[in-house]
């Protein structure tokens, strides 16, 4: 192989040594955790909303709605993480170990214009 391809071996080599797959935490924990906390804070603001607050938001108690939606989204992320945890590859290098497949991993929630929900139905997540 000519030296033209040396960089590819180097990348393959580094990929073998890479620690990201084994050690990087699951981002769903962060999203879920933050949204649960935010949800609770905003919900409390909703329960204690004054008439002026509601009037400002065109007659909707927007804190109540936003808070409960965020709480739900946060819980769904945590649930998704629980149901389909990352498969830990351990010390084993590539090829990746098998992980449970299936489930629509495609739908970020903005595909449903009204909802804040991410594609919390499916996996597609295992960092493998």
């Amino acid at each position, binding site marked *: 192989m000519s030296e033209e391809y040396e960089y*590819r071996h180097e990348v393959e080599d580094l990929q073998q040594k890479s620690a990201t797959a084994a050690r990087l935490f699951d981002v769903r924990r962060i999203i879920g955790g933050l949204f649960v906390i935010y949800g609770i804070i905003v919900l409390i603001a*909703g329960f204690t909303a004054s008439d002026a607050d509601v009037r400002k938001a065109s007659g909707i108690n927007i804190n109540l709605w936003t808070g409960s939606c965020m709480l739900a989204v946060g819980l769904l992320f945590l649930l998704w993480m629980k149901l389909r945890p990352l498969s830990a590859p351990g010390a084993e290098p590539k090829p990746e170990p098998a992980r449970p497949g299936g489930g629509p991993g495609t739908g970020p929630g903005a595909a449903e214009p009204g909802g804040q929900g991410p594609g919390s139905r499916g996996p597609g997540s295992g960092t493998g």
Partner: protein
Amino acid sequence: MHYLAEGLRLPTNALDYTILILYFVVVLGVGFAARASVKTSLDFFLSGRSLPAWVTGLAFVAANLGALEILGMAANGAQYGVYTVHWYWVGAIPAMVFLGLVMMPFYYGSKVRSVPEFLLHRYGPSSHLLSSIIFSVASVLIAGVNLYAMAIVVEALLGWPQWVAIVVAGLFVLAYITLGGLSSAIYNEVLQFFVILAALIPLTVVGLRRIGGFGGLKDALTDAHGPNFVSAWGGTGIGSANPLGANWLTIVLGLGFCLSFGYWTTNFAEVQRALSAKNLSAAQRTPLIAAFPKMFIPLIVVVPGLIALVLQPDIGSEKSGLQYNDAIPLLMSELLPNGVLGLAVTGLLAAFMAGMAANVSSFNTVFTNDIWRAYIRKGRPDGYYLLTGRVVTAIGVLAGMGTAFIASSFSNIMNYLQTLFSFFNVPLFCVFIIGMFWKRASAPAGFWGLLCGTVAAMINYFWLYKADVISIPSDQGANFVSAIVAFVAGGVVMVAVTPFTKPKPVESLAGLVYGTTAPGVAEPPAPGDEAWYRRPAVLGWSALILAALCYIPFSL
């Protein structure tokens, strides 16, 4: 650059600040937690090529969803009306699908670590160095402009002095990228994406309710601005005047083809997210998954711009003291009670920081790998380049902060520079696409195509348009035309130069040109990737069809 009116100061309270501070803590926490995963330079620059597609896909859309984009597109909505949707459905989706289906196999399959590195292997050092340097300078500059814009917004909304906002945001970005590299940038982008949704959806819902829903919005706008204002294509016939200053041909060719393909397929700040995916299928799906949320973002960005225009009909005029860019801050102060208001402020700041982080994390990769390692210090051990990457990150952020301070006195120059750099992506796309499909295209052809295309666009914009040699009604329209000029000039020069120069040896092109395969074993697909809903072709074509369907309500 825009200056927000004094009257936009938000009535924030302790609750709102709790939400904001919590976010800053989490952002930093992600950086610290991601640090353990950085062992090699590949971990730092490309997350070890190991992230799942939904994470890289959301980061791909979030890297583009910076605050300048959000405020700017809401402003375009208030100024140009429904035409603004072209930036999404014609100006983004087709290019994202093309990147995923056609270009990603070359990028990811050839194992390059950056977009300029692809140029190195396909064409050679001259075009590589040219594009690496321009990309590095542009990234730092844009990061600085971004910081400065944030400082103005934060000063108007929260009353912080500008330097406080610049220093705080800059140092947070510096800290979390130096610690966790691309992984922490990407994780924070995914988080930011959801926080932005949580901020903008309530804003849109409350705003719509205030003006009587979509029906009320449409009626009010039609009464005040005529039927073309609520139509995507009305008044865009060639020769007919419209506020955008463009016709359907320059919209489709200039914005939809040249500008958008140039931006989405060669801008490393975007492509880097896909290169960090765990296999070729995930890399291909990255821009395709991103296309679906991107398609619906006008609902929570352009619609608020239109709502602001209805609530404050004199926005953008001298009389109100409000600029179009103030559309979203105006709605925030008018409509949101404390609590959700804190979320909205957090979302805006998160978007500023993520936009800057995307620039910084792509800058450190290109500078370290494509300039330092390729031309200045070759052949050192991997740990050396990892350390270099961290140092370069710090230098890049500090330079960006410096740029932000300079920008406050030279904001017009900054705007010109940004326009100038935007012309570089289009010939870059031209050179890439010819290089991927035409084996014969030679190294000098790549370099001269790149250079001449960029210069041609600049001549067209700064000389022919600005000096009124040709008449184009608006800056936007001139941008579209310049992009077409850049693409055509780059292509013509390449075709003209190639026959007179030596071709690259065929064996050095394996995996870089259509019809060749990379040597070595292809990476095996992950189990589950063969499911129909994960097939890139299915995702890509559904995105295109859905984007076309989105036009129907605005075209009849």
